[in-house]
């Protein structure tokens, strides 16, 4: 029995450690949310960690609809919509093209396909900064500078390396004999994709969509470089909002704005997170 108590003591230590780490990690989030519900007086006088004594939605309403982001004072709402307009088509396009790419690279090997895949992998490691200037040139040539379409294009192109990699690695685990059997059954390239591959693809679609959604929603650099005054995404607007001070700094509005900007990715994780984990490990067991 001695060993059992010792074991429990070790366990307790581990749990204590984990608890402390979790608290450390969650504290900033707590401070943000708590602060966003306080009024400015309470922030100035009160304790940073205290709960709001008189919770108010003032900061949230202001951040959403009337806070100033530079010279405009319409809150985050229009920029939130800008982000949606970029994220939805960019995520869908990069995922669909990635699925087809992955299908080809996994099951329709051609001369040079391995080299192509290697180069695509390399694409995952190209830092944002490297593509900034050439991409700006390209967008200008195409007449897409400062447009939503331009931003969508940038995110699709940059995301393809990742989405292709995800789908390719998932589809490699689908037995090649299925493709051969379907070929003999008379199915062509797209019929095989539709009837054999798509039906098993839900987990990897979830993974890819979450990944791309998070990446593109949270993107700041491309957003700030390639957008115009009317097409700025929410991350850029958040930055402008925090840096614009009319009178004193309104920490509660800044916090509310930050939470609003982060909310969609948080929600996606909460609702689809279990599919994310399942999808990441799905290929490892059996396709």
């Amino acid at each position, binding site marked *: 029995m001695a060993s059992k108590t010792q074991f429990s003591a070790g366990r307790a230590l581990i749990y204590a450690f984990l608890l402390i780490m979790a608290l450390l990690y969650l504290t900033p989030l707590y401070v943000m949310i708590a602060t966003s519900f306080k009024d400015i007086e309470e922030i100035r006088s009160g304790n940073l960690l205290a709960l709001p004594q008189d919770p108010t939605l003032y900061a949230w309403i202001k951040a959403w609809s009337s806070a100033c982001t530079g010279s405009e004072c319409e809150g985050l709402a229009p920029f939130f919509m800008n982000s949606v307009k970029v994220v939805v088509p960019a995520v869908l396009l990069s995922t669909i093209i990635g699925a087809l790419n992955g299908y080809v690279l996994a099951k329709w090997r051609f001369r040079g396909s391995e080299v192509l895949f290697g180069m695509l992998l390399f694409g995952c490691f190209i830092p944002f900064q490297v593509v900034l200037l050439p991409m700006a040139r390209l967008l200008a040539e195409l007449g897409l500078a400062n447009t939503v379409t331009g931003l969508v294009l940038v995110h699709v192109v940059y995301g393809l390396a990742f989405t292709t990699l995800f789908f390719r690695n998932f589809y490699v685990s689908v037995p090649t004999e299925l493709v*051969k059997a379907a070929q003999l*059954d*008379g199915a062509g390239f797209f019929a095989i994709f539709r009837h054999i591959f798509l039906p098993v693809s839900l987990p990897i679609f979830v993974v890819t969509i979450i990944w791309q959604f998070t990446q593109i929603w949270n993107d700041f650099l491309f957003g700030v470089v390639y957008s115009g005054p009317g097409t700025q995404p929410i991350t850029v607007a958040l930055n402008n909002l925090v840096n614009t001070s009319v009178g004193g700094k309104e920490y509660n509005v800044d916090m509310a704005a930050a939470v609003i900007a982060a909310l969609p990715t948080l929600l996606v994780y909460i609702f689809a997170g279990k599919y994310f984990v399942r999808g990441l490990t799905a290929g490892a067991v059996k396709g």
Partner: protein
Amino acid sequence: MGALLIDQVTKSFGETQILKGIDIDIQDGEFIILVGPSGCGKSTLMNIIAGLEDATTGRLELAGRDVTDVSPKDRDIAMVFQSYALYPTMNVARNISFGLEMRKVPKEERDRVVQEVATLLQIDHLLDRKPSQLSGGQRQRVAMGRALARSPRVFLFDEPLSNLDAKLRVEMRTEIKKLHKRLGTTIVYVTHDQIEAMTLADRIAVMKDGIVQQLGTPDQIYNDPANMFVAGFMGSPPMNFIEVELENAQAVIESSSERHLLRLPQAESLALQGHSKVILGIRPEMITEPKPEDDPTYLHSIRMDFEVVEPMGADTMAIGHWNGTEVHARLSPKAGLHAGERTEIQVNTALAVIFDKNTGERIR
């Protein structure tokens, strides 16, 4: 009319030549088995017949039509895969009818065919199940059903029984044989199991190193092998090979320190060709307890010391030595054999074969 003509087919991957000129003419309704060790090229040949791989050179003819460059779906060929390759997200009925669906056969017709095939294979109660809910034997049947549904001109079977347990394998083997009898379609069947080859085939093509070593009926392959490889591949335990010297065209063997001369049916040609050392091939069932009813011309009475005795129920296998080489004998369990006892046995050389010591080819 020929069902399938394989004409001088070769296949190379870069420098490596997998198939070195295969010629097989398969008749309508024939059951052909391609057999050989791993890496002999039999699966590659199968894929070339199916159209899943292209031949490097050579020609394929299906019922008189040149199909060398025809895509798999237009070849009128169906295949049963080793892994069954059932579509995991479709139920059994859709798995069977998928080929018809892709060929735009109307729904009522598809349903009729599925029902017919399912009844034939006794899987009609499983039509709504997914492949993951089936046992190995059931999956095997569904895979065959999928091939049958399209009623193709030629069936290809790629080691279809190798994933089943021993008992089920024997059952399915019989089932496939019955099915072939009943439908009379042409079947090309790849296996590395020589018992499957012997029991199922009308003709067997024994392959090694990308070459058909011998193409013939099971009886020809077993009793009249072209070379040592074929002789050694077929039969379990395999044929005994003993290096012997010839004396007056008779094989000299030493067993239990006694010298014997074995009379051979090839005596005449051996004497003419002037060989001195050859390989004697003799099957274990030709070394038995004395059976007086056999033709005495090629019978010899020999004493042997058996080191190992393995009772197998119907027979007893025993292992001794001739000329220092291990020799397997197949005796009746009634012979009352014990390891280590000197035993009087009978050697029948009527079906003994002789191989060239250097090339391994038959000397006839």
